[in-house]
């Protein structure tokens, strides 16, 4: 038996070819998706919600023969934002990474286009709202896939009994479960009257005026309701206008009926306000109600989640979508897209919504009438209007309208809240507007 001798050149050539083959196609096992997939999901507040997403991923991984690892990254302490920044700098990281609100735009140059995934999902599940397009799309490029997990509306959660007793408002009649809202009288003026009545009754509305997200979202929705634009779509600073003056006057009145320590509130303060029974209304997704259900059931029984009051320029509710993204330097983009499609199927969305107790909101219009929201209790139907099933209000985000990278600065620096607090504390209107103008001009850096 003859044995062919391998020369040194042949050995080197064979090694190089094998290495090249391994490097260029390390994970491909099929035409669609395979190999390894490293996922960074948002760590859900609601106990048990992470398990639903893990199950969905495992179900897909078993079918597609992909090895998956999932990291649940908390937003407490901005760990998720630190992860995004670190991975963007290192050009290495998770194949799928959950990003909140502004971050797809902030990292737009580093993200894999998702047009093929999102356009197919829109055909299947219906269109997405304007805020999702504003935050998730740059020109014609979809930067990310709208995620159900973590997306939320921060609308009013009212105490049925206290609103009836002090403000004479029946929130259940205004927003009946299973029916269209009958909320024409729920205007910003009546909201102010109700705030005053509840303040007099010793159960003030719990609206924060700090620099964290909840405070910024609420004030942003009122600015939009008054048509108060501070930076327009072209990126021009237009803060010195009558609508801004009008909303500052309105907020000054409203602030006098809020707890005096509201400027120091963080995102937990309003939850505690509701759960402790001290207030008649807060602006929050159903997480506060869910905590009340566990810790103070008698209060949870009186909670009703509903829509925002309508202002001179419309009815707007703060909507904060989460997105799933894939870096353009990711190693397994086909698998990432395949999984994101799987996670956005109606059955998967329904599981996530149920596991989160109705907290998670799908962005697609055909998925806003799931039975979880209709059935959650106590009281039954308390979450029916949470996902805006009748398109009763326009879902928006604070500072929307300005180019997203400028709006992100307005949002992060809580410029609108600061304007309200400055004016409320006695600063002259012109001085507040000049301060805001200077701040906004500083956000135009590119």
């Amino acid at each position, binding site marked *: 038996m003859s044995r062919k001798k391998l020369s040194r050149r042949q050995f080197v050539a064979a090694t190089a070819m094998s290495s090249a083959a391994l490097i260029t196609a390390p994970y491909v096992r099929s035409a669609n998706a395979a190999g390894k997939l490293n996922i960074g999901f948002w760590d859900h507040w609601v106990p048990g919600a992470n398990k639903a997403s893990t199950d969905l991923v495992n179900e897909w991984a078993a079918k597609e023969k992909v090895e998956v690892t999932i990291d649940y990254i908390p937003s407490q302490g901005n760990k998720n934002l630190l992860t995004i920044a670190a991975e963007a700098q290192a050009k290495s990281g998770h194949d799928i990474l959950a990003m909140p609100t502004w971050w797809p735009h902030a990292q737009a140059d580093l993200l894999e286009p998702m047009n093929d995934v999102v356009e197919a999902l829109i055909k299947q599940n219906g269109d997405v709202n304007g805020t999702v397009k504003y935050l998730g799309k740059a020109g014609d490029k979809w930067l990310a896939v709208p995620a159900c997990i973590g997306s939320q509306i921060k609308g009013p959660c009212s105490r049925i009994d206290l609103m009836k007793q002090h403000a004479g408002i029946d929130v259940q009649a205004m927003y009946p479960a299973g029916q269209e809202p009958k909320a024409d009288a729920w205007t910003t003026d009546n909201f102010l009257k109700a705030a005053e009545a509840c303040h007099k009754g010793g159960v003030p509305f719990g609206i924060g005026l700090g620099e964290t997200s909840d405070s910024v979202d609420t004030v942003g929705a009122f600015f939009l309701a008054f048509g108060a634009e501070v930076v327009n779509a072209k990126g021009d600073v237009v803060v010195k206008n009558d609508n801004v003056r009008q909303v500052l006057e309105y907020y000054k009145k409203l602030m006098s009926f809020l707890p005096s*320590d509201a*400027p*120091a509130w963080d995102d937990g303060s309003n939850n505690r306000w509701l759960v402790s029974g001290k207030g008649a209304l807060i602006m929050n997704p159903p997480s506060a109600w869910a905590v009340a259900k566990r810790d103070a059931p008698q209060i949870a029984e009186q909670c009703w989640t509903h829509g925002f009051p309508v202002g001179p320029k419309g009815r707007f509710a703060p909507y904060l979508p989460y997105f799933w993204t894939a870096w353009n330097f990711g190693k397994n983009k086909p698998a990432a897209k395949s999984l994101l499609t799987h996670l956005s199927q109606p059955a998967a969305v329904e599981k996530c919504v149920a596991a989160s107790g109705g907290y998670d909101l799908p962005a697609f219009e055909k998925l806003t009438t799931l039975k979880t929201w209709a059935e959650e209790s106590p009281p039954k139907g308390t979450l029916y209007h949470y996902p805006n099933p009748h398109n009763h209000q326009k879902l928006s985000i604070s500072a929307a309208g300005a180019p997203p990278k400028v709006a992100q600065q307005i949002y992060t620096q809580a410029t609108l809240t600061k304007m309200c607090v400055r004016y409320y504390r006695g600063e002259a209107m012109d001085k507040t507007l000049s301060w805001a103008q200077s701040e906004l001009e500083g956000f135009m850096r*590119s």
Partner: protein
Amino acid sequence: MVDVAVERNSAAPAQKARKRVTLRTALKRKSTAAFLMTLPLILLISLLVIYPAFYSLHLATLNKSMQRFVGLGNFQFLFTRETFWLVVQQSCIFAITAVIFKALIGFIVAHFVHNIPAKGQRKWRGMLLVPWVIPPAMSTLAWLWLFDPSYSAFNYLLAGVGVDRIPWTGETGWARFSVILVNIWVGAPFFMIMYLASLKSVPDQLYEAAAIDGANWWQRIWYVTLPMMRNIIAITTLFSLIVTFANFDIVRILTAGGPLDHTHIFATWAFRIGIEGGDIPLGASVSLFMIPILAIAAVFILRDINKRGNEA
């Protein structure tokens, strides 16, 4: 020619031998051994401190999207921002006030502890160090609950004696007071323990001599204790000034820079701009702004120490 060649050949091994001897001697030197022993730490510091420091310098010279070199443009931009000057002012108020009070309280408590009989002193030293050894992130959370806007334990106690509730973190002045108070609480034990060590090294004979000369309590402090502790006071002050200027956790947890940015210090504002706002170059520029301030302080304090060292 031959002789020369022979001489050259014979010189080479001699040189090698000399080199070997030199290397052996160098290795035997205490300074070389010390250098080699500290080399791992030097490498670690280079990797974890010097590299990030230079990297942040590089970042500070880029535009917001990090695609263009802008030189000192970020610093020029910062100088035009009202909030930046507010942060500079607040950082100075925060650091200087906190260090002064930490030094004062540390000095007084060190004297008390020094005068406790040796038998019970260890117990007191241990207890007084507790605020310093607890991770500030944890202890500040406890303070956060004490200062909570709606459910402050302090306000509950004040209400018990008929005093109005205080907006600990809601009003500018009170919020500044609160963050400084917590910083003093965390940092004073460090001063205390350093001053205590220094006090113990002051020879008793000096106090005896002062007593014979008729010095009173104040004169003993002024003419004996303070001169003997000057260097340790200076070093401790410098060290604490650096750490306090660079503080992050206390402000971040208690007020997150609010209300109206009036408690932001360099590190928290850099985080707000760089990480939360997605403008990493500007955030890096804010954090680098601490360096010249601290460098000036270090030069003044260390120059003074050097002068006294020469006098000695």
